[in-house]
């Protein structure tokens, strides 16, 4: 399961909406081994494409060194799909090179409703996982179809059946 702060998730969705119809991408760094996404780093999509994203290789080196120095790791690697569902494409799976990361996909194909799904991608195998949003101000209109449980500060998004 991915547990992520609502403010960080909101910032990721805002980034995806801002860059739409191009794909947006970035990471959320966190203390190594903590599995806690803490520091949102939006990245430029060097491909500037509606169907492809890539980090600029030198920007990536700078960020990965920075994380190494701070004893952080990329807890979340995210990108948006702007015309298709939030499910890893064959390209996503081929490139996925961070076995410890949560691969978060945001689909902005629907202007009203944002689809958010999280996956582990290890050795080419995709496994969907639930997303738990903490410190959420619950909006009963938000992504309602994926909501299965909520408390005043926590929202759980269930994995979609059959995926």
């Amino acid at each position, binding site marked *: 399961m991915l547990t992520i702060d609502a403010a960080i998730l909101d910032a990721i969705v805002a980034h995806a909406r801002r860059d739409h119809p191009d*794909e947006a*991408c970035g*990471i959320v760094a966190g203390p190594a081994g903590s599995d806690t996404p803490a520091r949102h780093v939006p*990245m430029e999509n060097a*491909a500037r*494409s*509606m*169907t*492809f*994203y*890539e*980090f600029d*290789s*030198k920007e*990536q*080196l700078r960020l*990965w*060194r920075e994380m190494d120095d701070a004893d952080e*790791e990329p807890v979340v*690697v995210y*990108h948006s*799909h*702007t*015309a*298709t569902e939030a499910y*890893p*494409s*064959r*390209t*996503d799976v*081929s*490139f*996925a*090179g*961070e*076995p*410890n990361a949560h691969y978060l996909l945001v689909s902005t194909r629907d202007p009203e409703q944002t689809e958010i799904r999280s996956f582990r991608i290890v050795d080419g195998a995709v496994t969907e996982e639930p997303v738990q949003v903490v410190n959420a101000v619950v909006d009963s209109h938000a992504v309602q179809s994926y909501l299965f449980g909520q408390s005043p500060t926590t929202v759980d998004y269930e994995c979609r059946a059959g995926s």
Partner: protein
Amino acid sequence: MAIEVRIPTILRSYTGGAKTVEGAGDTIADLLADLDSRHSGIKARLLTPEGGLHRFVNVYVNDEDVRFLGALDAKLNDGDSVTILPAVAGGAFAFAAAHALRG
């Protein structure tokens, strides 16, 4: 000559978990051959069957991407630091088209 090589998480199974290993070679190609002699299998994760540098990885000499330094022919000097990272890329594009785009 000693080259420090930084190994990404996904390849540490080849280095017994080590984040950094030492290697030697006058070029990236020599260095990868040297690394493979002690960390068998690592080279195959970095090169395509045709022998080119794989599109799914970035290799840097100090601060520069080797794609701008002659790729596998990039020259190395004693004391250089080589960093290997998984390229972060993907998207809704079909694989074959993405592969063509990235060359």
